[in-house]
């Protein structure tokens, strides 16, 4: 019972990191996705490089970089902030690519139909293309959210008191006994349990949206 309670005490922090960094990524991903699709080549290349760097450098490196590397008298960053900002930026990179794929997956005929009807560019983008792209990408976004939930565990390495950190603290006091393993197993099961509702939602969206679009 005790190890379960200890691990659960980290749950709010796990959820906070996941939700907050997802929110950052979801918003920041939009301009980046537009950057990835712009006709202005230099901007596209730069955004591409940024996205690739965000995705290509391990999460733990980003977190250490933010936590230990970025501190000036004017700019102080706590472990929690570093975790949220770091995971948020990385999410933005991944989500930007997901958004871009969605915009690309809207059939060309939709762009053409809107143009042929003479619907102005912004109206057709937000009224016609984006709603369809949103439906196309929502399963991928749900999958990414599940991944993000699991990745929030890496925040334990910079001492954010989320589930794995709590599990670690308890396990260290009970080395060489079952109580030294149990918290990890409990945390692992909790991650699986937590991802089930999102996965179910995603599957439902997937089935429904496939019906709605095309």
């Amino acid at each position, binding site marked *: 019972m005790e190890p379960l309670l200890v691990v659960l005490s980290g749950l709010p922090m796990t959820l906070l990191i996941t939700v907050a960094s997802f929110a950052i990524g979801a918003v920041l991903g939009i301009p980046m996705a537009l950057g990835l699709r712009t006709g202005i080549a230099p901007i596209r290349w730069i955004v591409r490089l940024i996205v*690739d*760097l965000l*995705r*290509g*450098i*391990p*999460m*733990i*490196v*980003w977190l*250490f*970089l933010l936590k*230990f*590397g*970025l501190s000036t008298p004017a700019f102080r960053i706590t472990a929690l902030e570093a975790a949220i900002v770091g995971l948020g930026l990385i999410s933005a990179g991944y989500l930007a690519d997901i958004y871009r794929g969605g915009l690309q997956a809207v059939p060309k005929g939709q762009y053409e139909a809107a143009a042929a009807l003479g619907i102005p560019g912004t109206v057709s983008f937000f009224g016609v293309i984006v709603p369809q792209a949103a439906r196309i990408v929502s399963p991928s976004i749900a999958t990414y959210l599940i991944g993000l939930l*699991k*990745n929030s*565990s*890496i925040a*334990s*390495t910079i001492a954010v008191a989320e589930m*794995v950190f709590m*599990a*670690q603290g308890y*396990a260290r006091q009970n*080395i*060489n*006994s*079952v109580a*030294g*393993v149990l918290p*990890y*197993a409990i*945390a*692992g099961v909790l*991650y*699986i349990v937590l*991802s089930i509702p999102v996965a179910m939602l995603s599957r439902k969206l997937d089935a429904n949206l496939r019906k709605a679009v095309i």
Partner: protein
Amino acid sequence: MTTQEPLLQFWSEGLPGMLHGLQVSVTLAGVSMIIGLPLGLLFCMMVMSHNRFVSALGLVVVEIGRGMPALIILYLVYFGLPTFGVLLDSFPSAIIALAWNYSCYCSEIFRAGIQAVPNGQNEAGDALGLDGGTTFLYVILPQAFRSIIPALLGQTILLFQDTSLAYTVAVPELMKEAYTYGSTTFQYLRVFVLAGLCYAVITLPASWITRWLERRLALSY
């Protein structure tokens, strides 16, 4: 009082150690991949098996492997197994954890790739009187590889990045070397920027190749 060294000089002092770490990271990823790929194919075949018990077993193994964070799996192997009398060193522990995690993702990639081949191909094989195995081996699998290969490459890039987690169990890989260098110099910003670049040197070209391959394979036939 001494002043800060120029950046490039600072980096060049730390670089040999970091490159050594990078070598360990690459080895770790490589070995995990060599173990994980066939294991993933095995899991995939279990999951897709018509035998319900085998399929359920495969599903449990894969869903646990994908459902838990890699870090947890690593801790379970490193700190957990000794409780049950299995004492593994850092490196093999990291390999077991990473390879299992990787193989579960690969299993799903294989499955998705196979299912993406239009059903008409299976039907054509059936209608021609080809037996199931022949159709799978010569008709379905070659087509499935078209979508599987880029996805596998992408997953392998993630595997390479996940080797940084082995830092927590004291495997002397790149992240560990960076941290060590950081704790002797206390210039974390410079150190982790260099570490990030070391990772990027591998992951950036790899992801470019993946994208290129994806486009090329999509165009082929």
